[in-house]
């Protein structure tokens, strides 16, 4: 690779990696697409455009002169020449509405934009600098927010005097405090983000941090807040107009039309009230619909970036929400099964057998397969490790077994999962619910997002039991206590009354384990249960899990990317790469005599393996995205032993050389498995 002229006298320390993935669509384009997906939003936008045309062109598009009186034709009902009829002075109502739009639109835009502009620096400075200035500004804001907004607007407008300009000013003043609050709150949140700390440590000036780091990030909430305020501005103007403070007759505004109709036609021609009223209501509705859609689209574009596996916290949370909801009422919600054939159950049947499982997601870019023909089994009392790099499909495989993946987008395209000989993919919702949590249970990675912050530990433990067994309160309570004891939480009686936030990370993970074991399941799926913990707490947790596993004769699927943890606790291990199993066998066999280059690479990359001072082994390149799985052996672009055949030939999982003879099978997916002499861990 060519190097640039080197101004610091430095050569690149690592081989330069070129861009692999295609550039995704711009965030702005995606935002627009997301906005236009809902029909309501499109309608709202269409209506607002119509009003905008009326406001811009005014008299030019009005069918009649809005101020021309025609006493002979006063209070006409709607007709061809006057679609909305005429008012008590015979003026065309439609024309007056069209001209009145200008006032409403002008005031709503002007007040909201101006108020936003004034509030922005106040909120930014107040939130970022904090201290006494913040105290003072927020006192003033609080005082203003203590009055109902319309009352305050009337008071201010009354002080300033009649006229459109003064009303606009009054509405602006009333809006500033709310916006300032909003900006301040967002600023406070963004200020705590690491990238702001990064900017500070770089030595960037405060002014620049505010304008270039904070501002772009508080923009979205402010935009949403402002779009929701347009409706309020329209209403306020109409209200003030109705009170005669805004647009003065004979010039039309929606508010003073309402007033005129109220004063002169309320009992005789009430329909005259309908038109301005309806337009105001529609306008408010349209603004709010747009504001809501904007909020959804903006938050979606911020939270779900294009790389799917970076949204872990939300993912975990969503899965748990889905779990809890489905456990209760909703009937929809098992992962959809679209397989054509049903693979036969193995004989003799182990506790759990996953047979030829393939999973697909329907994404914006089309259908992608993320798990491809995965088979493994777990015997009673056995601990199986499922390892592999991020994105290899470990989590989705475990969620599919529980049928917890939401459909859409997920679909089980092929395969079967036999649990005690029963095909889980053929069960109904109620049958599945009876198994989940009772015989088949799960622990998630992040104990913080997986426990419900609003309930005590005791509540959550009892809930887990009551979903499956009809027990009285006292029994449930005793069981909860007993479980906390079992997972070695000191002073369990007292902990039952505590909330998740009162516990440390390690304690929370123990509680998760207690919840999962509440109904004495036969199989526990633990998805990275120790990844978020310290080494010392991890060691405690592994010890606990091992002793529980023996005591309860529990089977466990342990998902992790830490091979040290696997060596510690697992009997057998399955190594996953790009949605496939590439090697499986007993931990002893696979770790000391690996037969597949990827396994060798993973073992060599562990920091505990290499000698201090030597460079650690690095598997070159990256895990390919499921949409870009290479042909032939999926590992071939990164494999050090690649031969031509690897690039084209389909590689299947076969019995490895020393596995066929031994008591437990050792399966390998590699064309060269027999001939390579790979290094295991020392």
């Amino acid at each position: 690779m060519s190097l640039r002229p080197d101004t610091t006298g430095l050569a690149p320390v690592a081989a330069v990696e070129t861009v692999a993935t295609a550039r995704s669509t711009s965030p702005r384009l995606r935002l627009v697409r997301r906005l236009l997906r809902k029909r309501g939003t499109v309608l709202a936008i269409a209506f607002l455009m119509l009003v905008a045309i009326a406001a811009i062109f005014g008299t030019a598009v009005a069918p009649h002169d809005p101020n021309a009186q025609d006493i002979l034709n006063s209070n006409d009902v709607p007709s061809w020449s006057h679609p909305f009829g005429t008012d008590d002075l015979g003026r065309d109502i439609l024309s007056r509405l069209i001209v009145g739009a200008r006032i409403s639109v002008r005031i709503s835009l002007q007040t909201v934009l101006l108020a936003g502009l004034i509030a922005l620096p106040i909120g930014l400075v107040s939130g970022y600098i904090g201290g006494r200035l913040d105290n003072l500004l927020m006192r003033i804001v609080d005082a203003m927010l203590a009055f109902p907004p319309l009352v305050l607007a009337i008071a201010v407008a009354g002080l300033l005097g009649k006229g459109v300009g003064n009303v606009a000013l009054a509405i602006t003043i009333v809006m500033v405090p709310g916006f300032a609050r909003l900006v301040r709150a967002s600023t406070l949140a963004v200020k705590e983000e690491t990238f702001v700390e990064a900017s500070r440590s770089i030595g960037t000036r405060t002014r620049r941090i505010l304008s270039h780091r904070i501002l772009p990030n508080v923009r979205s909430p402010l935009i949403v807040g402002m779009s929701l305020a347009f409706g309020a501005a329209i209403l306020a103007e109409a209200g003030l107009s109705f009170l005669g403070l805004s647009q003065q007759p004979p010039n039309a505004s929606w508010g003073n039309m309402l007033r005129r109709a109220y004063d002169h036609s309320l009992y005789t021609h009430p329909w005259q009230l309908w038109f301005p009223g309806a337009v105001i209501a529609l306008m408010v509705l349209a603004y709010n619909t747009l504001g809501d859609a904007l909020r959804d689209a903006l938050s979606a574009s911020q939270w779900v970036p294009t790389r799917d596996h970076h949204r872990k916290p939300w993912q975990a949370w969503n899965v748990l929400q889905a779990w809890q909801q489905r456990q209760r009422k909703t009937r929809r919600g098992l992962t959809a099964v679209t397989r054509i054939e049903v693979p036969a159950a193995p004989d003799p049947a182990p506790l759990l057998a996953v047979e030829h499982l393939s999973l697909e997601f329907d994404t914006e870019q089309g259908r992608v397969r993320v798990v491809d023909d995965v088979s493994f089994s777990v015997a009673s009392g056995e601990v199986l490790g499922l390892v592999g790099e991020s994105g290899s499909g470990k989590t989705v495989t475990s969620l599919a077994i529980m049928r917890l993946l939401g459909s859409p987008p997920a679909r089980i395209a092929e395969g079967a999962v036999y649990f005690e000989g029963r095909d889980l993919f053929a069960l109904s919702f109620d049958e599945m619910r009876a198994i989940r949590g009772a015989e088949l249970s799960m622990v998630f990675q992040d104990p913080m997002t997986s426990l419900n912050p609003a309930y005590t530990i005791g509540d959550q433990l009892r809930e887990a039991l009551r979903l499956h067994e009809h027990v009285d309160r006292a029994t449930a309570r005793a069981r909860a206590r007993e479980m906390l004891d079992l997972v070695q939480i000191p002073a369990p009686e007292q902990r039952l009354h505590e909330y998740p936030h009162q516990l440390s990370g390690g304690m929370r993970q123990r509680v998760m384990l207690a919840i999962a074991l509440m109904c004495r399941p036969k199989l526990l799926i633990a998805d990275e249960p120790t990844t978020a913990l310290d080494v010392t707490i991890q060691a405690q947790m592994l010890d606990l899990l091992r002793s529980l596993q023996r005591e309860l004769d529990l089977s466990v699927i342990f998902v992790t990317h830490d091979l040290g943890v696997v060596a510690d606790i697992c009997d057998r291990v399955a190594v996953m790469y790009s949605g496939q199993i590439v090697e499986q066998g007993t931990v002893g066999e696979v770790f000391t005599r690996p037969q597949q280059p990827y396994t060798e690479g993973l073992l060599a990359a562990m920091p505990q393996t290499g000698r201090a001072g030597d460079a650690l082994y690095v598997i070159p390149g990256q895990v390919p995205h499921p949409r870009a799985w290479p042909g032939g052996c999926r590992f071939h672009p990164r494999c050090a032993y690649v031969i031509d055949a690897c690039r084209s030939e389909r590689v299947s999982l076969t019995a490895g050389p020393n596995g066929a003879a031994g008591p437990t099978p050792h399966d390998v997916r590699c064309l060269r498995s027999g001939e390579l002499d790979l290094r295991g861990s020392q």
Partner: protein
Amino acid sequence: MTAITSAGPALLETRQVRKLFPIERGLRRRVHGHVRAVDGVDLVVPRATTVGLVGESGSGKSTLGRLVLRLIEPTSGQVCFEGNDITTLHGRELRELRRNFQIVFQDPYSSFDATATMLDSLREPMRAHLELDAAQQTARAAELLEIVGMSPEYLTRYPYELSGGQLQRAGVARALTVDPKLLILDEPVSSLDVSTQAQVINLFAQLQDRLHVAMLFIAHDLSIVRHVSERIAVMYLGRIVEDGPAAAVYDQPKHPYTEALLSAIPVPNPVRQRERRRIILEGDIPSPANPPAGCRFHTRCPYVLDVCRAEDPPPFLTPDGTTVFCHLHTSGPQLEGASIGDLRTGDRSAQ
């Protein structure tokens, strides 16, 4: 200490630095005691050396890092850079000083502004410290990316378009922009996958060889820092309990806590992992708001002596250049600087 010999004052030295966070309760924000996050730490980072700082979650590692960067003010004590106390600097002087220190954070995704491109983020330190025009800035940014092994094509990318490992390397590139003398790495590989972890660890080793930049490498896993560190300091509950040459700390730990930390790291070999003697520490790290009296580790220490509950252990300098704070070296069986492992094998306790 041993490492500072000819070159005059150390690059960085903290002297009894302390940070107490007030615990505020209620509406009136009355102070109900303090979290003693960092409680009297002496740490030396010599020029062009890497010092590893390890300890459990909540032991005060990040707080110490942020104190050194002056992102927070110490409650007492001094932070000296090249012999000068920097705790009193403000405004422009402080900004100037920050050229010398840069930090890389744990989570690469949150340490980059999601709304800014890589180029924009890499330019930020240049704007603050270097007088370069736009074209020069872009050239420099491209060059920095190449140093960390990435193609300049990534300059136009947004953070979410990069993998964790790539983004972390971009974070290193950003930190290197102004040729800092000290890099503070706050758990830079904890959120990465095994294979990417190895990539980034190697990058640090290479950077140290070529750029001669000093590093303070914070982690909770000793096996990770030992690959790049010359010295390792072990922190527990706001204090340093052992500080010495990396090989000495890793192979012959002198403090019971270090020994426990080491024994908790699982090795990826089933036979060795299962026959290793492991010390499982009971319970969690105590609250730093209310640390135990005497030796702070006494509530979890498997070797605790009576004296430990009452008296703070004094520093003890061992022959291999380790400073250790533990009564075992001065009272009771008297290790006198030998490794804790000797206590188990009975070499010492028989005497």
